[in-house]
């Protein structure tokens, strides 16, 4: 065992990188579920975003355009879900599962010919002075922009839900869509926008994996992270800060357990391998003891005539 080979500064820095895709996808899904829609297609939207972002970044040489394309790709795919569930009033669970399968297939199709290509590298934040600080500079001020974007989105979502009228309306739609409708709010339109936002966030989360974390395109490369994002929203009791905590915990424990393994710590590897799931669930379940519950209209179909 040689713990000195673990560099805590690099560890904390890579923790933030490992957490970001999960954070982006989960905070998008949180907004969707707050509006009363259950979209199980996160995995499909992520992988679609991953390839859209990758293809555009490679073809234009501009990774930022890639991120925009990923957001657009995820949103377009989620539009399909929105049309099915909000206009055609299809079952949300089935539509969401279908969306995941469709996204996986579609991304494999688009991805033909993009295997083994190296994407343009993503600019890192470099603030003279701040980024050069010992310790803190590496941990806090020299990441790629997407890490900060993730944090900004979480903050914005929290602020919007808690302090703005728009947030209040969104929550009202999610809690009781008939009452919201009676008050004159356009339930379907609001839900559509929430779904599109969720799709865009998931798409960016996917692009983070294909453009920054790995970086390359491989079929099926999200490998289930979308499902973890879905579970995270539930365990975080639909609260943005808890999603942030959960994502960082999950990312953190994932990276730490790999580090401990490489350093040869004598904890059995099976326990290390399951620890990210276990610790994240445990912490969030303990925190959610305050009886906060799901949006009351979650997953229910709304039709104005009823």
């Amino acid at each position: 065992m040689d713990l000195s080979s673990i560099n805590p500064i690099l560890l904390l820095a890579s923790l933030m990188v490992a957490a970001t895709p999960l954070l982006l996808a989960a905070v998008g899904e949180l907004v969707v579920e707050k509006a009363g829609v259950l979209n199980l297609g996160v995995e499909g939207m992520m992988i679609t975003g991953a390839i859209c972002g990758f293809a555009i970044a490679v073809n234009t040489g501009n990774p930022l355009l890639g991120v925009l394309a990923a957001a657009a790709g995820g949103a377009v795919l989620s539009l399909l879900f929105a049309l099915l569930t909000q206009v055609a009033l299809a079952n949300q669970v089935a539509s969401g599962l279908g969306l995941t399968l469709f996204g996986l297939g579609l991304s494999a199709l688009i991805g033909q010919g993009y295997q083994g290509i190296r994407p343009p590298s993503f600019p890192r934040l470099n603030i003279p002075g701040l980024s050069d600080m010992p310790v803190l500079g590496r941990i806090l001020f020299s990441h790629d922009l997407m890490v900060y974007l993730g944090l900004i989105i979480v903050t914005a979502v929290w602020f919007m839900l808690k302090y703005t009228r728009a947030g209040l309306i969104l929550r009202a739609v999610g809690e009781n869509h008939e009452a919201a409708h009676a008050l004159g709010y356009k339930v379907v339109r609001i839900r559509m926008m929430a779904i599109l936002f969720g799709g865009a966030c998931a798409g960016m989360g996917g692009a983070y994996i294909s453009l920054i974390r790995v970086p390359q395109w491989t079929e099926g490369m999200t490998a289930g992270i979308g499902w973890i994002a879905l579970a995270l929203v539930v365990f975080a009791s639909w609260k943005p800060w808890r999603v942030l905590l959960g994502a960082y915990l999950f990312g953190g424990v994932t990276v730490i357990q790999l580090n401990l393994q490489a350093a040869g710590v004598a904890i059995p590897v099976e326990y290390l391998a399951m620890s990210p799931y276990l610790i994240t669930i445990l912490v969030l379940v303990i925190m959610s003891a305050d009886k906060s519950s799901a949006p009351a209209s979650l997953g229910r179909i709304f039709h104005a005539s009823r």
Partner: protein
Amino acid sequence: MKLTKLLTTAALALGLATGAMAQDKLKVGFVYVGPVGDGGWTYEHDKGRLAVEAEFGDKVETVFVESVPEGPDAERVMTQMALDGAKLIFTTSFGFMDPTINVAAKFPDVKFEHATGYKRADNVSTYSARFYEGRAIQGHIAGKMTESNIIGYIGSYPIPEVIRGINSAFIHARKVNPDVQFKIVWAYTWFDPAKEADAAKVLIEQGADVILQHTDSTAPLAAAAEAGNIIGFGQASDMGEYADGPRVSSIIDNWAPYYIARTRAVMDGTWTSTDTWDGIGPGMVGIGEITDKVPADVKAEALAMKEAIAKGEYHPFTGPLNKQDGSAWLAEGEVADDGTLLGMDFYVEGIEGTIPN
């Protein structure tokens, strides 16, 4: 009543007719653990499938299901394939072993071929490649080229196949570089690019400048390319797209000849349950081109070793070798038997850490 009877008979006759027509074509099924575009393990199996199609043309029909999880779901997929008329089914991951045996018991007329396992039945063959022969060459190059003397190894699951590879690489790295150390990380997955990349990054952060992988995607090479000044090897497939980056050589699985031979055996009715374990000699394991990053003398030694292994003059597990706890395993000049290799559950002397159960 009569009408219904007539219709039933007609339907039956039609069913028999289409059944008979389908008999002309041999349906061959493939169950994959990852996507066909993983660029590694599954990609090579799928190349084998395409080779079967190219060889037999109209006489075969191949079907495959990709990204099948190892577990109960695999049984469902295989059952469905057998029900759909597949007469020969290749299941291409270690974790499909028990599902294959279970489903094979239900379909005695269907032939099954399971890769890398050890359980056989009258209608279940096993086949695998001696990847450890390639690992010996990798270990040699890695030991010669590392400057930090730390070699990172990304394992998938602690099964004999993977442990064999670690031991083989380690023995040959140590032989040329007594200071070399292995840092081993278990990813507990065959295919998860994000996790594989994370593992590679962690190993690089902890000082490794050579990354060996026993997982299926090219993600570790991508992570190595991003870090710079790191070398790695293509796993299961050539991964030649990283040849101008970290990839200095590769182990290539070549399944096509085996798949063609087995398909032909089913067509001829000569198929029997067998156990195949071929290496560099018969061509089931290939060594990808060694790039110019490797010094010429190291490259020559590596190629000489490949030649010796192919001719059967050299066995990667030749004594004297001790087990990790220091107890003797192979005496001077003694060669490991296949039984021990197939069930290998111990590290050789010098590797640090324990194998998870």
